[in-house]
């Protein structure tokens, strides 16, 4: 019996090649999309899970609102770890990590840079999974000067020599480290990646008792089964007890008064949630994360596409019912039971699904490299064979079979045989369910088109926004800080080139890798808030083309200007300098106590952080150090680069010449959004294609069902456009209805997305019109493709069959 079912199913599929090609191709697109996006989602959500104790590890983070400034940092104060461990029994272990920027090792007169370096508490190696492959695996970081290095770094520094016991000189001889162990590289799927860890025991700052400065990533290992939310609820007492007294000392106000106006708190974040909640991008996250929102968006797109493919299957099968009805009638007349017919139809959809799965596998194989490029991943085909994907594929096969084959199975098998055999059975065009499903498909298609237009608009808006500075033709050589004494002569040499317009000496940039500095600011004795500090020279403002609104730029004419500052508009307002800020003073809180600063100028606000954030108060101080920023006036950058490189080499430092362009760094700030735009564009295209394939199929059936009517109308003098209009009208109506649902929904969701940007577009009415136009055009094109053929057919042929 089963064999007979399969045989008949195969014959039916072959006989209805047209419908089944639409069904199978659509399904395979849907399934391939699902598989790719599933790979992506599984990959993104599996960060840090390789750690055996992952479920019991939490990170302590700091959130505050001080003087109107929202602070959220992934780093906390030095004593937090020790305090929490001793105060709460459910904390088994508390370990810290302190990242050091731009580290440098010297070994055998060779310099090494470009590696990631951090101090860690020795317990760190027990809380997290480390694979020590050489040396002391019990407690390699016990001694203050001990370090452990990754296998790759070991090979780089020591080649074939045994690294254990070797000494490395750190930061030009500041410190000497002894290698005690070599570890296997940390998994890429960790929220941190380091090449070298040094013992925290030798790091003096780690012993600080300050509850004011946050610099330490702090992780807690909790007792098995204890709830982190319960622990989190107890943390305010810790702030009261330890931070309170220090706040009184630092700010001169009682903690209770401070708390009336401000909020300060420690919070806990499960280790496995860190990667998907990158709320600390500019304040301590060790690696860029992936906003979980994007995973939802991609997941939804994949699911929608699969749904649309399933709907095609259902719709085409029921539309084809009149063709199959006779077969069902005869089978029933011959004694077939309804459930036998249901089985027959389900087996057909099962076979079609299996073919689609095979095709989907092929598609994934073909497009995996493209997808990898798009998503910035390195998936391989064998990744598809992981347990969860195989299981999910099996579940998908089941769901798709039932979803796609179920409705036609029950619908067709319930046909009364007598009606069909007397040719009274007609599938009228007025199937509400089918119409509903077509509307659903176009709600998704139109919604996606709307979303894409808005994403493109927002990204174009960012690209073209007046940033308050000019990011074009700016060359950045951050490594210039390494030239030290010879920097000025290098700058002078480069300035000789007529292609160079101006040069400024600063490591502070409004985009890309930059130094970051913040300080508390006081007016008189009263603490205001923290502000960003840019250390620059007098060429900074002209080189970046900032606009000076009031006062003057720094200048050598005025001698030393260390206590003079130029502030941005926001800082000026924040300090209450509404009228004539020039000459006003305020105090910067520094490690050596307060420094009184005098305002000499105000610059127009410029976007020195990404457009996700509002412009914050900024202070420009005359304190040149660090890298070199060059404004060029040429399109011929390559010859300029060659000339600068030769000057760089003349200075004879061992570092290779490296540079970036400011506009490229700027573009990279929005990589996540661009990635989303690209992925969304591709899958939206595919979704619409699949939806249109379904529409094409439905128009085919409508044309077949109405072939006689079309014939009569033509005999009576109807023209080809009139016939096309006749066939399109019903579908266009459905599409118009879909807009009514898609657009409010799309508006709502895209508003949510735009909330992420402090500077954003407003959604315009014409965007809806444009989305409607595009959707209608695509749908109408599909309909015309089919209905034109029906319209030009000779009516004699359709009427002769009578």
């Amino acid at each position, binding site marked *: 019996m089963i064999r007979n079912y399969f045989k008949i199913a195969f014959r039916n599929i072959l006989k209805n090649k047209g419908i089944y090609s639409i069904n199978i191709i659509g399904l395979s697109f849907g399934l391939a999309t699902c598989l790719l996006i599933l790979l992506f989602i599984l990959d993104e959500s599996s960060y840090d899970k390789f750690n055996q104790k992952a479920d019991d590890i939490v990170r302590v983070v700091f959130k505050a609102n001080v003087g109107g400034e929202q602070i959220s940092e992934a780093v906390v104060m030095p004593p937090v770890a020790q305090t929490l461990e001793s105060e709460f029994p459910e904390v088994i272990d508390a370990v810290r990590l302190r990242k050091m920027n731009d580290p440098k090792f010297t070994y055998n007169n060779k310099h090494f840079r470009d590696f990631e370096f951090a101090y860690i508490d020795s317990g760190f190696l027990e809380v997290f999974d480390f694979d020590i492959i050489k040396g002391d695996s019990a407690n390699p970081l016990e001694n203050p000067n001990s370090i452990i290095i990754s296998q790759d770094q070991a090979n780089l520094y020591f080649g074939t020599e045994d690294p254990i016991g070797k000494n490395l000189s750190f930061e030009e001889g500041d410190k000497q480290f002894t290698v005690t162990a070599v570890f296997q590289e940390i998994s890429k799927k960790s929220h941190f990646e380091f090449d070298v860890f040094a013992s925290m025991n030798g790091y003096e700052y780690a012993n600080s008792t300050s509850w004011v400065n946050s610099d330490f990533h702090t992780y807690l290992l909790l007792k098995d089964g204890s709830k982190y939310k319960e622990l989190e609820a107890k943390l305010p007492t810790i702030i009261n007890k330890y931070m309170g007294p220090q706040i009184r000392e630092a700010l001169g106000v009682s903690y209770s008064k401070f708390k009336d106006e401000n909020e300060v708190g420690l919070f806990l974040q499960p280790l496995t949630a860190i990667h998907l909640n990158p709320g600390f991008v500019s304040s301590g996250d060790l690696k860029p994360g992936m906003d979980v929102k994007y995973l939802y968006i991609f997941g939804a797109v994949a699911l929608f596409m699969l749904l649309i493919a399933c709907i095609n299957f259902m719709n085409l099968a029921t539309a084809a019912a009149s063709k199959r009805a006779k077969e069902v009638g005869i089978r029933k007349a011959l004694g077939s039971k309804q459930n036998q017919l249901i089985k027959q139809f389900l087996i057909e959809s099962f076979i079609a699904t299996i073919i689609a799965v095979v095709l989907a596998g092929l598609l994934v194989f073909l497009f995996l490299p493209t997808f990898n490029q798009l998503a910035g991943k390195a998936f391989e085909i064998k990744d598809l064979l992981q347990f969860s994907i195989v299981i999910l594929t099996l579940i998908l096969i089941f769901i798709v079979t039932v979803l796609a084959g179920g409705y036609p199975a029950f619908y067709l098998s319930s046909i009364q045989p007598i009606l069909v055999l007397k040719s009274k059975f007609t599938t009228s065009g007025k199937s509400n369910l089918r119409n509903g499903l077509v509307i659903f498909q176009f709600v998704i298609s139109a919604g996606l088109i709307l979303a894409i237009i808005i994403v493109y608009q927002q990204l174009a808006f960012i690209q073209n926004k007046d940033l308050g500075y000019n990011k074009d033709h700016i060359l950045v050589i951050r490594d210039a800080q390494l030239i030290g004494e010879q920097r000025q002569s290098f700058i002078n040499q480069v300035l000789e080139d007529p292609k160079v317009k101006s040069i400024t000496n600063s490591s502070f940039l409004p985009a890309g890798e930059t130094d970051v500095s913040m300080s508390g600011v006081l007016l008189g004795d009263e603490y205001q808030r923290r502000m960003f500090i840019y250390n620059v020279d007098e060429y900074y403002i002209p080189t970046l083309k900032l606009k000076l609104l009031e006062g003057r730029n720094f200048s050598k004419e005025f001698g030393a200007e260390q206590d003079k500052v130029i502030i941005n508009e926001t800082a000026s307002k924040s300090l209450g300098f509404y009228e004539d800020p020039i000459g006003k003073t305020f105090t910067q809180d520094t490690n050596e106590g307060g420094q009184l600063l005098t305002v000499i100028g105000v610059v127009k606000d410029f976007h020195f952080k990404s457009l996700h954030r509002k412009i914050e108060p900024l202070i420009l101080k005359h304190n040149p150090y660090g890298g070199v920023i060059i404004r060029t006036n040429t399109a011929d950058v390559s010859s300029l680069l060659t000339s600068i490189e030769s000057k760089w080499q003349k200075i004879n430092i061992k570092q290779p010449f490296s540079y970036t362009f400011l506009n490229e760094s700027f573009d990279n700030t929005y990589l996540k959004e661009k990635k989303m735009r690209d992925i969304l564009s591709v899958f939206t295209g595919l979704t619409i294609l699949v939806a249109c394939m379904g529409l094409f199929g439905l128009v085919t059936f409508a044309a077949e069902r109405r072939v*006689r*009517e079309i*014939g*009569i*109308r*033509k*005999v*009576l*003098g*109807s*023209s080809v456009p*009139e016939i096309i209009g006749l066939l399109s009208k019903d579908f266009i109506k459905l599409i118009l209805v879909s807009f009514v649902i898609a657009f409010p929904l799309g508006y709502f969701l895209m508003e949510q997305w735009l909330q992420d940007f402090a500077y954003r577009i407003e959604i315009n009415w014409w965007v809806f019109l444009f989305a409607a136009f595009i959707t209608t055009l695509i749908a109408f094109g599909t309909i015309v493709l089919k209905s034109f053929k029906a319209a*030009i057919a*000779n*009516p*004699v042929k359709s*009427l*002769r069959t*009578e």
Partner: protein
Amino acid sequence: MIKITNLEKYYETEEVQTIALNKLSFEVKEGEFAAIMGPSGCGKSTLLNILGLLDDPDGGSYLFNGIEVAGYNESKRAQLRKHNIGFVFQSFNLIDELTVFENVELPLIYTGVKPAERKERVHEVLEKMQIMHRRKHFPQQLSGGQQQRVAVARAVVNKPKLILADEPTGNLDSTNGNEVMDLLTELNEAGTTIIMVTHSEHDAKFSHRIIRMLDGQKVTENILV
């Protein structure tokens, strides 16, 4: 009004070529009522399609009102057709989704008649066919005779010079059949030229002249009046 000379039409399938019309010639004068008879497959329907400008002959000449139309393309044929020719089919060919009124109105829509005038003319013709009271019904709600009266109404609403009827009584009982034949006779007496294909000797007697066909050729011609 109609003059065909050496008209030819072939049908080709993959293996065989069938000759549907074989150098057929005859003439129908304006105001005439001609019946075409012959066994199934003799080419009657093919001839009617060509006369009705629905199909193209493969050879010979077809003069419609003195104009050679044999080489006309589809759009030119459609233009001529919708203004000059009305059709009555054996199976009525009413559109199920449209009411009686709407079915009859169609040819007027396609010839661009204004809505107010359309309503007037449809009512006029429905009155004449005595189915005015059924104007809001759908075809399935009518008897066969009523459906054919609607079809005739539709054929004449545009006041065509020529009506082509393809077995107009084939699906009707004798009472309804006679009613339809009476309608056609009335129309003919009012000046419309009618060419009717039929199997029925009884119906053929309503005409002025019977053209008998076999294998795509004319065999005899009996003048009845």
